[in-house]
């Protein structure tokens, strides 16, 4: 029983990061109708940023969140302007399909570059707090993982407030609803698209920095994070930040519990099974309204 509970706790902790990774992907998809399948590679870059800042300068990854987010914001803007922007005026389905193709190309290039620059070794950040745990009803909660969950939640709260209350946040939501009408009321739609892409990438940067504190970072981790983020977006529904976060936690728990009952080999399978069930029963997502 305790072991099961421990699995639930661990699943929830890792699931918060799934949620964070998914919100970045969902933001880009919701505003631009583009699926950036290189999202996981951007997260990988964020992880390396945190790893090197720690290794070279002793910066705690929780502090590296800021430079990592800023760097990935710029990377996102650059990727958008150079590669994705040309798709903006394409009709819906072509846009989606071509964005996936471009994203695959970007992910291959980023993986190869990371391999050349940093080798295929697993990298992890072990801070002084790494061994500290808190008791929780018989289970233990590693402080670092709890911190990552809390930070993920706070960052998403910040994004939510920005989109709801800020002038530019409202412009982003209006553009997501109807880019044509948005441009007619004077919203600089081109800038909104670029910033939304940058913001989604910055969220991958934050997630990567947090991942470096709890899991290994290597050039190959991207695809699995992209897949998890995709599953969570489908579970939560596009455009629902907290729904997406909760869906991330659910996926984490489901993976962890099925790993416990069925063996670790079935962890990933569970996620995909959930994905299929939700797609067939509630294709709009668990928390979407329509």
């Amino acid at each position, binding site marked *: 029983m305790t072991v099961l509970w421990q699995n639930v706790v661990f699943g929830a902790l890792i699931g918060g990061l799934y949620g964070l990774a998914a919100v970045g992907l969902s933001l880009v998809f919701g505003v631009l109708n583009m699926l950036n399948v290189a999202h996981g590679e951007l997260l990988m870059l964020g992880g390396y940023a945190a790893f090197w800042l720690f290794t070279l300068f002793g910066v705690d990854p929780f502090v590296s969140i800021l430079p990592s987010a800023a760097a990935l914001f710029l990377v996102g803007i650059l990727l958008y302007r150079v590669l994705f922007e040309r798709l903006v005026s394409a009709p819906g389905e072509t846009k989606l399909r071509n964005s996936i193709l471009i994203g695959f190309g970007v992910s291959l290039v980023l993986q190869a570059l990371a391999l050349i620059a940093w080798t295929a070794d697993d990298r992890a950040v072990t801070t002084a707090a790494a061994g500290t745990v808190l008791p929780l009803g018989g289970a233990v909660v590693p402080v670092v993982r709890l911190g990552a969950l809390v930070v993920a939640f706070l960052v998403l709260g910040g994004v939510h407030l920005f989109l709801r209350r800020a*002038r530019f946040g409202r412009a982003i939501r209006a553009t997501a609803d109807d880019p044509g009408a948005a441009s*007619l009321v004077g919203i600089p739609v081109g800038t909104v698209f670029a910033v939304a892409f940058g913001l989604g990438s910055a969220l991958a940067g934050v997630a990567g920095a947090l991942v470096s504190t709890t899991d290994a970072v290597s050039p190959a981790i991207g695809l699995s994070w992209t897949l998890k983020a995709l599953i969570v977006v489908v579970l939560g529904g596009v455009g629902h930040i907290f729904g997406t976060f909760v869906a991330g936690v659910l996926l984490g728990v489901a993976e962890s519990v099925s790993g416990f009952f069925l063996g670790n080999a079935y962890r990933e399978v569970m996620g995909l099974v959930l994905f299929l069930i939700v797609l067939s029963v509630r294709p709009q997502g668990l928390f979407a309204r329509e």
Partner: protein
Amino acid sequence: MPGSAAPLLEVASLSKAFGGLLAVDDLSFTIDSGEILGLLGPNGSGKTTTFGLVAGALRPDGGEIRFAGRPVTRWPASRRAALGIARTFQLVRVFPGLTALENVLVACLYGRRRVSSPARAGADAAALLERVGAAHKRNTPARDLTLGERRRLEIARALATHPRLLLLDEPVAGLTPTEVDAAVALFRGIRAEGVAIALVEHNVRAVRALCDRIVVLHAGRKIAQGTPEDVFAHAAVVEAYLGRR
């Protein structure tokens, strides 16, 4: 004002074809500041296409459009909007995920004469909602509003950009008679502020009550123009070209 030197909008020999179909064929008309011009004609006669050409959503195959003395024929829609051309759509296009107030607010914040102070913009947006009679729904997401409310919200959003010319595409279609009367009063008030209005509308009562002049289209060509009295006196026009709903 009517009668002053140059008209606000000048459309000359405008043409637009879709495939082999001439949707707009050698069309010319003008609109003065503070004037309400009705565009009438049966469905498919080129009214909405004309709006698309004037607003910049469509590129003409031939002809010229001048607005406020500038040749805007090749300008994108956003740039024409910035110069003062605003439009509403036959199928309403509000931002469904934004509240009624936010719909107007983004236009106040980003439109022509943009307001940089958030408090000012909020007050302006609230006043516009009040004016179109949607103040009580300010915090309701636009997707949950009735058709009439969404139409009025779209007009409030257009007004928030301080247009000099407002293109209204069937603004009273689907409204109750009471709502039509309220809309007519609203459009008169807008015109009284010097804003010109081009109106595509099948509702004869609204057209008679509002329009200073009417241009009648058929198969993309202008077949009649004049005051409402003149145009409606043409029995043929009434019979053939005022496609009723």
